[in-house]
């Protein structure tokens, strides 16, 4: 993903972001350790981590952008592409799979008219698969934003989307 050339390469971080990242730094022996939390802080404020933000965080932590990019791409919950306001993670691991996860995915995607990883036209939602959410006794389960929804039935799919 290239930023448009007329935009400054260094977009910088907000004061709030920098303060939150600095607060995390006090917990570790070494600045590098904050990498993942810093990316998550940026993501909390902006929903995803753009190239410009990645460069800014790298600078703040004294890392090379390539080094930080290697970390960012390793983890499933760091988004390097824009996502909707609410990310819907549906569990596709074994018990949920057995009890209808694929069916839920189809219903969700059809409702929002999106493929996995895409943003709905209104910018509200992105649907992504996720591994076992640790609630297999209530399979199938879906994580909507930071809310875990259990025992999802067909009707519940419409409830999730509130329409």
């Amino acid at each position, binding site marked *: 993903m290239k930023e448009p050339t007329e935009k400054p390469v260094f977009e910088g971080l907000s004061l709030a972001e920098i303060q939150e990242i600095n607060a995390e730094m006090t917990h570790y022996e070494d600045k590098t350790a904050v990498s*993942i939390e810093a990316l998550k802080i940026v993501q909390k404020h902006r929903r995803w981590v753009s190239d410009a933000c990645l460069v800014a965080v790298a600078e703040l932590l004294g890392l090379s952008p390539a080094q930080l990019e290697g970390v960012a791409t390793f983890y499933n919950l760091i988004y390097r592409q824009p996502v909707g306001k609410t990310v819907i993670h549906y569990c596709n691991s074994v*018990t949920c799979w057995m009890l209808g996860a694929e069916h839920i995915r189809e219903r969700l995607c059809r409702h929002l008219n999106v493929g996995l990883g895409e943003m709905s036209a209104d910018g509200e939602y992105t649907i992504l698969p996720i591994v076992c959410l640790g609630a297999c006794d209530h399979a199938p389960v879906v994580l909507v934003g930071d809310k875990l929804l259990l025992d999802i039935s067909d009707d519940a799919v419409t409830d999730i989307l509130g329409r």
Partner: protein
Amino acid sequence: MEKMDKPLTKNIRSDRAFATLADYESTGGYQGLRKAITQLQPKEAQHWVKEAGLRGRGGAGFNTGLKWSLVPMDEDAAQTRYLVVNADEMEPGTFKDRLLLEQDPHQLIEGVIIAAYAIQASIAYIFLRGEYHLAAQRLANALLEARAKGYLGEHVLNSGFNLEIYLHTSAGRYICGEETALLNALEGKRATPRAKPPFPLVSGLWGKPTVVNNVETLCNVPHILHYGVEWYQSLGRGADKGTKLFGASGRIKHPGLWELPMGTPIREIIEDHAGGMRDGYKLRGFLPGGASTDFLLPEHLDVVMDYDAVAKAGSRMGTGTMIILDDKTCPVQMVLNLEQFFAQESCGWCTPCRDGLPWTVTLLKDIIAGRGRMEDLDTLSGLTRMLGPGNTFCALAPGAMEPLQSALKYFREDFERYIVGNIADMETA
């Protein structure tokens, strides 16, 4: 009244959101810590936990007190040591630590403080799975409460012992649960496992002695200190001591999680606690301890949930949360789902795992699509050896091979049916 036979879940009640500090203290909470700090030397606390026979609940089953006793303590008392809580629960089919974290956060925190005292660690990290938002919120709050009460921070309970506990939320990757990969993740790096030796006990986080323990393991510790070694040992029904959270998911009547004595027969868990199979379904097999354990069959129902007993039956206790295979779910497709997980989550560090897992997935997909050949089953068997113990850098790949190798053994006809083009009328999920 305290339920002394269920120490881990005695505060967890369906009529209450979660145990507050007051709830926790009212059933003996923080008494174990008080005893450890005021009456026992660190080495003595280690010894209690070792004698109690508590074995790691993260899967490997190593004696916890023995592990602590291997941390170098004598040479340099001022040396930084770390305690790290493995709260990365991500193994498919596993849902035990989330309950403990969300419903009784102080139990874990007390366990962490005692463990840190026992190894004289001044900093502890709780490495929490990023998706566990509610747990993060409750832990953060409980840490503040514990600090306000003097259980945490400088001069714990007015002693000379100081401890900080930090909550670190992860960003999602199964390999982070492997203890050396976890240390790299905590250091802000890609979570690839480290070579052992040196073992983390000697050289872990930032090269300092580090103990990594599972959530459930640490939740046992306060009770051992408070009620004593003999009491703890009396809880087990078989060779192993204490209680454990056992769970079952799949097409059973009452999927759930139950605190039961170690050594509880599998039949009791599946038939009594889980209520048996749902109407219209029969038990075909089960993974006794999560996605990376070998299938067992109905003929193994009388095996007891002890580390050695499950191993003798050809599988592993793992996390103690079972995944049930019913007669209308295709075992080949189930194994494909598991292998897709492992292939996706492989860290890519070593070749057998990086290449072997995607190959396994391709072969299984071809078989299911009707493009398989009988030789493919030999290739799959070959892969289970190639990715088996000793051939890869960490235990992810051998774990991935466990359900596959046992499926090839027990459900061979299901694989063959796809290959000879006579596919049974299976319910595809």
